[in-house]
């Protein structure tokens, strides 16, 4: 019964979405206010229906209703409750429902809080948003019904993929989807603007907060995914250039470009057609990401069960959505009037360079991901890509990006003074030099790239600090004034500083992690000791442990440094009962500058166990830097100027700083 309610709600949502897609758009074209006014209530009703459907699906998982095929395939009665819940979106069908749910939430937010939007723009935005919804609801209902029943019902389910039974991965998809789908807002605004024929500073002020929300969540989602890969897959890597990872990384790169170019539209009224194009491209890449994962076009371990029929449907959706919007762009964009002019050396110029490098980087990842496919299509098939390709193409693009990122914020709008800016960066140069010397000393003869990476990170961090120092008048005014200036700094500027600093820290972490790690691997008997970088790991015992739906071999290590006990680590090797799959649960000990990482492998039947130990320098910085980037995004979001059209931010800002705005 519950499943049927869910199914019915989805059908109802489709009907509402159809109305919402057509009526407001027609109303905006004819100037019919009543038709336009249907958009907001329709968006709210659509959300109610989809939320009901999602709730029904989750309920089926929670009570382990094995008459529902989807529950049978992805859950098991022994599974802990948190994974019963997360199994709702840990499969193709359920994740699509989550996808449209988030789409509807964004639509409803515009409907409920976008009171200050011009009515025709609001109607068109909601209509475009709903068109996307129609496509995906049709896709779910026609090819991927999550509420299908099985008869006769089996006694128990087949268990969620054990790799997904992990707290990190339980929350990875929702974050990622808020990011992906959040870019639909920028997309809808871009399409609406193309139809209206008007892009101005006010438009950019509405688009920016939505892009910031999406960007922040996508950053968090990607970071969470990398973190999960790091500790769950058990061999210490954190980024593999896997097609599915790339699928989330491409919208991030182009979305980052969009974030920056919309600043130019807002402040300088320039670069409009480019920004609209970026908005379309960002969401298009989110859609293509969805396609890659689900269509069976590319092979990947992450891939959901694939089905050619679904692939054809998604491809059709892509052609209509992306092809349609790009055709609209080709037709309407030339009519958008350009605005302010600027010299190549200027803040705008630096942001354009940022955009070019980021989009080129995204294009590189795109080619690397789809290359095997392209060559096969023309009958070649003799090509290979992998991390070697991306290291050779993507990494070099990051070098000028980081160099320019340091100087860019120091340049003035319209016409900048490069020599003056560089002169003001004396401290940054000194800082960079000292980082380079230290890095070279540590890794002499080991890795020139590690030195380069750390030096670049040092440069960026130095520049960010100099710029921040200049803004708060560190060298010019007294201590009290500095604090007052810091408090009075626009939140957007504060967010920029935090996010850029976070990026520098992530770059440092990535350089250290990929270049200076140490590892040992050896058979070890209980009582024996293995050493890595001044740490001694003694294997005390290996015990068999019974989990709720798995059995595990758990090794207990005592870790000593100079004879003093540092910590105890307990890595596991789990075998899940239902599927027979084995997973490794690495054990980590994190210090501010490095991780100790232990994995226990197979036994040799004679009482010895394979033990794999890593010393991972700077890896914690990757996560710390990512968190800072996300935090910077939210700080920027709380900026007063952006709160127009971004009601969620208004509330968080009001909570954080109620005294600052007594009039509201």
């Amino acid at each position, binding site marked *: 019964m519950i499943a049927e309610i869910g199914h019915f709600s989805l059908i109802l949502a489709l009907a509402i979405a159809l109305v919402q897609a057509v009526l407001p758009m027609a109303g905006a074209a004819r100037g019919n206010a009543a038709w336009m006014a249907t958009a907001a209530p329709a968006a709210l009703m659509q959300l109610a229906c989809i939320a009901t459907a999602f709730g029904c699906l989750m309920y089926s998982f929670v009570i382990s209703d094995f008459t529902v095929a989807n529950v049978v395939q992805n859950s098991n009665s022994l599974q802990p409750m948190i994974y019963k819940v997360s199994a709702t979106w840990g499969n193709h069908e359920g994740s699509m429902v989550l996808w449209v749910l988030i789409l509807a939430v964004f639509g409803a937010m515009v409907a409920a809080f976008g009171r200050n939007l011009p009515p025709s723009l609001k109607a068109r935005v909601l209509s475009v948003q709903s068109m996307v919804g129609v496509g995906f609801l049709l896709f779910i209902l026609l090819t991927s019904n999550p509420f299908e029943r099985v008869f006769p019902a089996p006694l128990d389910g087949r268990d969620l993929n054990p790799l997904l039974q992990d707290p990190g991965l339980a929350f990875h998809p929702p974050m990622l989807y808020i990011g992906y789908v959040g870019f639909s807002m920028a997309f809808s605004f871009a399409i609406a603007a193309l139809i209206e024929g008007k892009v101005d500073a006010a438009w950019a002020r509405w688009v920016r907060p939505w892009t910031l929300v999406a960007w922040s969540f996508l950053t968090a989602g990607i970071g969470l995914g990398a973190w999960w890969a790091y500790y769950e*897959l058990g*061999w210490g*890597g954190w980024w*593999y250039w*896997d097609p599915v990872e790339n699928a989330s990384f491409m919208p991030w790169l182009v979305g980052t470009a969009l974030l920056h170019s919309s600043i130019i539209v807002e402040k300088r009224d320039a670069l409009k*057609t480019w920004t609209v*194009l970026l908005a*379309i*491209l960002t969401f*298009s890449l989110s859609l293509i990401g969805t*396609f890659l994962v689900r*269509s*069976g*076009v*590319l*092979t*990947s*371990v992450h891939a959901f069960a694939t089905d*050619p029929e679904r*692939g*054809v449907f998604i*491809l059709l959706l*892509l*052609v209509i959505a*992306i*092809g349609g919007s*790009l*055709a609209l*762009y*080709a037709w309407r*964009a*030339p009519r958008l009037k350009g605005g302010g002019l600027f010299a190549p050396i200027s803040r705008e110029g630096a942001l354009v360079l940022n955009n070019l490098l980021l989009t080129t980087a995204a294009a590189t990842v795109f080619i690397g991901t*789809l290359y*095997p*496919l*392209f*060559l*096969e*299509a023309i*009958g070649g*098939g*003799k*090509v*290979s*890509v*992998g*991390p*070697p390709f991306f290291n050779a193409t993507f990494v070099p693009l990051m070098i000028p990006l980081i160099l320019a990122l340091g100087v860019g914020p120091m340049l003035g709008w319209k016409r900048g003074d490069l020599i003056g800016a560089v002169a003001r960066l004396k401290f940054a140069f000194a800082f960079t030099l000292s980082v380079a010397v230290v890095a070279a000393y540590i890794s002499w003869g080991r890795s020139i790239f590690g030195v380069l990476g750390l030096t670049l990170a040092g440069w960026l961090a130095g520049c960010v600090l100099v710029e921040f120092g200049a803004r708060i008048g560190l060298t010019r005014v007294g201590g009290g004034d500095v604090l007052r200036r810091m408090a009075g700094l626009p939140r957007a500027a504060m967010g920029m500083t935090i996010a850029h600093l976070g990026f520098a820290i992530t770059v440092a972490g990535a350089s250290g992690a990929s270049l200076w790690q140490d*590892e040992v*691997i*050896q058979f070890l008997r209980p009582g024996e000791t293995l050493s890595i970088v001044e740490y001694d790991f003694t294997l005390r015992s290996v015990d068999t442990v019974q989990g709720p739906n798995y059995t595990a071999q758990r090794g207990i290590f005592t870790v000593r440094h100079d004879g003093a006990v540092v910590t105890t680590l307990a890595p596991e090797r789990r075998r899940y009962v239902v599927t027979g799959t*084995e997973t490794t649960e690495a054990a980590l000990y994190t210090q501010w500058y490095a991780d100790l990482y232990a*994995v226990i*492998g*197979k036994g040799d039947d004679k009482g010895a166990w*394979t033990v*794999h130990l890593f010393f991972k320098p700077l890896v914690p910085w990757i996560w710390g830097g990512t968190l800072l980037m996300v935090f910077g995004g939210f700080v920027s979001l709380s900026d007063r100027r952006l709160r127009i059209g971004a009601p969620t931010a208004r509330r968080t800002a009001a909570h954080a700083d109620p005294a600052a705005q007594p009039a509201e």
Partner: protein
Amino acid sequence: MPRILFIAPLLLFAIVAAYLAIGLTKNARILPSALLDQPVPSFDLPPLKNDKPGLATADLQGDVMLVNVFASWCVPCRAEHPLLMQMTHDKTVPIIGLNWKDKKADARAWLAELGDPYTRIGHDPSGRAGIEWGVYGVPETYVIDRGGRIRYKHVGPMFREVLTETVLPLIKELRK
């Protein structure tokens, strides 16, 4: 700005969409016809480990074998590895390793940790032999008959279903 710049994104997308459409109609897991039933390409690779021989064209004659292309940096290789270990343990079929675009130390550590299912392993750090084989990603698995011909190719991690439904019956038939 010239009008063509505004139309270019649409044209580029049309090309991408065409490729995706072709990609959909082809099953990516099936061997490009060019190599099917052909003798294995000629190549000669040094050994990966000191106690195990390397791999050359002449080694792939005389028995039905699997050639598995793997790398330590490859995620799906980890996923299929237990299955290969089990096949070697059950003495199902000799499995030959082609270690592709990998560092020697990394690959050895990888095998030491997960177990080594291979009877011999060729080390191909540059990916040169991989090009001869038409490898376009790891893992890939080839079925070689007694005459040293490629009879089947599976792209991506080996799944139990593929193994029992396609690969094992094929091996049985080739052994007759």
